[in-house]
């Protein structure tokens, strides 16, 4: 699949240092974003460790398929997704061990979202409240579940989505990298279609800019970099209360060849006869 990427991170308007990190590995179609936390400059250390160790583990496993998994592979996931989940587990270990070794870093942690595209298959792994969205044929939906207290309460029917969005508890996470020796990693797979746009972002974007505005910005920009720039601008216009980071990945439509056009022409009349929607 041909893909186009745009990415940017920004301090925002309130914070004095940027604790977000992202890493693009275009040769693997691997994209990672992390939002660090912890006083002084330790949030930066944590998010940097997260994206670098995930990239390194995936790259290494591509060269040496027998690199061990940190957790036993799950049967319901493909090899790449299991790799990615293992890489996130490794990132947790790296941050946790660094904090154990350096007392000043105690309490540092990070969220992470990582996507890995292999042909039409998308692998997603995440921990925390950074998000992955998918824009497909005009529909915009969140692919990841936030590991925040309010999101968990919404899932359990204790809060409504609206209450969660106005809650003062939004910053309380129930999972993050680097807090405990092991972490539960969410891993999932999706089928990608031509024209899909994937959005990886830190909560500095998702809390400042509404879903509808993110989607309409994507739809009104052909270039993913200019769309990323605009999203950062919007987050800052609305207050820029946190560091803000975004990685955009678009699956470019393949130009249709002659054979494909003939096939489509042959295929379409046949399809309508089987569809109850026709006539």
């Amino acid at each position, binding site marked *: 699949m041909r893909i186009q990427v745009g990415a940017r991170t920004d301090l925002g308007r309130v914070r004095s240092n940027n604790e977000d990190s992202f890493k693009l590995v275009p040769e693997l179609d691997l994209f990672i974003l992390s939002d660090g936390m912890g006083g002084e400059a330790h949030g930066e250390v944590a998010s940097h460790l997260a994206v670098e160790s995930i990239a390194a583990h995936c790259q290494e496993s591509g060269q040496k398929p027998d690199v061990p998994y940190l957790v036993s592979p799950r049967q319901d*996931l493909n090899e790449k997704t299991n790799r990615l989940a293992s890489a996130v587990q490794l990132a947790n270990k790296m941050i946790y061990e660094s904090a154990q070794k350096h007392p000043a870093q105690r309490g540092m942690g990070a969220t992470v979202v990582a996507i890995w595209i292999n042909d039409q298959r998308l692998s997603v792994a995440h921990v925390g409240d950074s998000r992955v969205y998918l824009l497909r044929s005009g529909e915009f939906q969140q692919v990841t579940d936030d590991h925040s207290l309010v999101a968990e309460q919404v899932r359990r029917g204790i809060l*409504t989505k609206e*209450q969660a969005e106005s*809650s003062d508890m939004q910053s*309380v996470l129930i999972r993050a990298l680097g807090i405990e020796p092991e972490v539960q990693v969410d891993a999932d*797979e999706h089928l990608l*279609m031509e024209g899909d746009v994937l959005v990886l972002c830190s909560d500095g974007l998702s809390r400042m800019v509404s879903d509808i505005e993110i989607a309409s910005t994507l739809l009104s920009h052909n270039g993913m970099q200019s769309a990323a720039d605009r999203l950062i601008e919007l987050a800052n216009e609305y207050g820029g209360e946190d560091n803000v980071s975004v990685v955009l990945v678009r699956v470019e439509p393949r130009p249709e060849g002659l054979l494909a056009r003939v096939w489509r022409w042959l295929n379409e009349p046949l*399809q309508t006869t089987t569809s109850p929607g026709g006539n």
Partner: protein
Amino acid sequence: MPKLILKFEAAVLKEVTVGPRPVSIGRAPDNDIQIDNLAVSSHHARVFAEESRLVLEDLNSLNGTFVNNQKVQRVNLKQGDQILIGKHHVVIDMGGAAEAPALPDAKKVAAPKVEETMVLDTKKRKELLQQALGAAPVAAAPAPSGGPAGHDKTQPVPPAAPPPRARVATLVIMDGNTDQREYLLSSKLTVIGKSDMATIKLKGWFKPKVAAQINKRDDGYFIGPADKVPTVNGQLIHGPTKLNEGDMIVVAGVKMNFVFKD
């Protein structure tokens, strides 16, 4: 002057001094201490000074008011008492004359601001969720308007029923040319089509590479369109659609029955 300190976990959210007027606590915005949580009644409780005492009164709240883990209706408060409302605590600081000068210093040791991201460890998380579950019913549907769901004022709501035992979702091919007659949906992603990555392999000249996809999620199986838009029970789907036992799916000339098998 006595003070009420609203806390969530270690975080101090608000401090309110008790003056001549009662201090109201509840979910509605007109309260002096507003707690935005469905487990809290709109006007849940109030605290007021009566003669030289500080009194807490529960205002017939749905889920009750607890002082030092005892359910109370009306009680005199003393220094250090902990009121539990929903999952928030209100700590009593009587602000006695002897302590008064020390207070400004004590305040400097501020709990982390909520704007700073904080992470609950596994133990805290379990406690907190258990508490939240105990305080409010688990329901897929939102609570009816006018207040939290549930009718019993004293009995805690029992924890959620355990999930039904694992049954394997299966697609049984009713009609059409595929490489098997039955497929177990054991993967997170199941692709229907002619492509190499397809689990449900379609045969035939004009079949699409990826006709449709089925995603396994925590809350069920969802079928979504790919190169084709499937029908479920004769209806074209709009985006990912949850599958129910017995659903009949048609896509790219193949008819499939979605069932759970033990």
